[in-house]
């Protein structure tokens, strides 16, 4: 069988698995909860952070934008899955699986799209925290290939979808500042912003 570059890269990365300690780290990173919960908790913390009302408002706008970006990324991935299906790598390639075998479309990686939409949103609000979030999202994406459930191109697609969703949210919020403004005003009245 002639393999594409994507398939060869997948086999090489998945082939790194088999060493106990690294497998345990990757198995921890790859699950559906750890990275999404951590990134979401960062957004939650960002809402209440900010030194002074003005900086807090900037961060709260970044949080709302990030949430919108995550929503847009989710919808776009769902629509993409209706139009295009790619089989998971373990269905026809030799794979060492560290995760349960999902059977929805491999491309794009929904998990990578959501994680990078959150991470780019955090980066727009706070550069240093955002850099850490992007590194965590990248490790999450890598772990999905290492664990055998995605091709590298699926992760790259997820990154692109996440970035596009973040930019779309940025443009929408810039065009309609009344949207985040109304939410923040309501939360301020309740002394939660």
């Amino acid at each position, binding site marked *: 069988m002639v393999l594409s570059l994507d398939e060869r890269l997948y086999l090489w990365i998945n082939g790194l698995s088999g060493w106990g300690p690294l497998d345990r780290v990757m198995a921890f990173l790859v699950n559906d909860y750890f990275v999404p919960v951590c990134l979401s*908790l960062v957004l939650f*913390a960002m809402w*209440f952070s900010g030194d*002074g009302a003005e900086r807090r408002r900037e961060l709260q706008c970044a949080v709302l934008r990030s949430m919108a970006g995550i929503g847009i990324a989710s919808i776009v991935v769902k629509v993409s899955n209706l139009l295009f299906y790619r089989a998971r790598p373990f269905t026809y390639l030799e794979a060492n699986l560290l995760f349960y075998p999902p059977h929805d479309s491999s491309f794009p990686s929904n998990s990578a799209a959501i994680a990078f939409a959150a991470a780019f949103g955090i980066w727009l609000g706070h550069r240093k925290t955002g850099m850490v979030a992007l590194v965590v999202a990248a490790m999450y994406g890598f772990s999905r290939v290492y664990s055998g459930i995605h091709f590298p191109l699926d992760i790259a697609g997820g990154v692109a979808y996440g970035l596009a969703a973040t930019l779309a949210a940025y443009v929408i919020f810039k065009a309609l500042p009344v949207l985040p403004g109304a939410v923040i005003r309501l939360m301020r009245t309740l002394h939660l912003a």
Partner: protein
Amino acid sequence: MGWLKLQYFLLVFFASLGILQAVFSWRKLRGLQFFGQRIAAYLFAAATVIGSFVWFYGAGNRNTLPVLEGSQQTSMFMAATAAAVVFTVLLSSAINASRLPRTGSGTKCGNGLDDLRHTTYLRCLAATLAKVANRARSRERHGA
């Protein structure tokens, strides 16, 4: 599946409690703090965040089915963080009722979270609701 939802809810609830105490202590929002000392707040945050993750991952293999779908995770996350906020404002208001003095002629509030540097959440909410009620009464009087 119901048990997994509850475990996820508890993970996010306790982790959020810790995160909130760390942020409120860092930003000196005394009305929302459980602890007077910053170190105590940070230790509480570390214990709740690390403890909840250790408990969650110790309670089962999270890389097998069944799993929570994205929409389920989103709704459970929102519910758990909202519950953590409600729990925090109620408990901190009770703890700080005697610790933080009332201001002279009633509590003056109107600056969102910044008001909670010097008063409790429930006092501020009461002041805000009183202001809204006064405005409504005054509009009625002028309308009549």
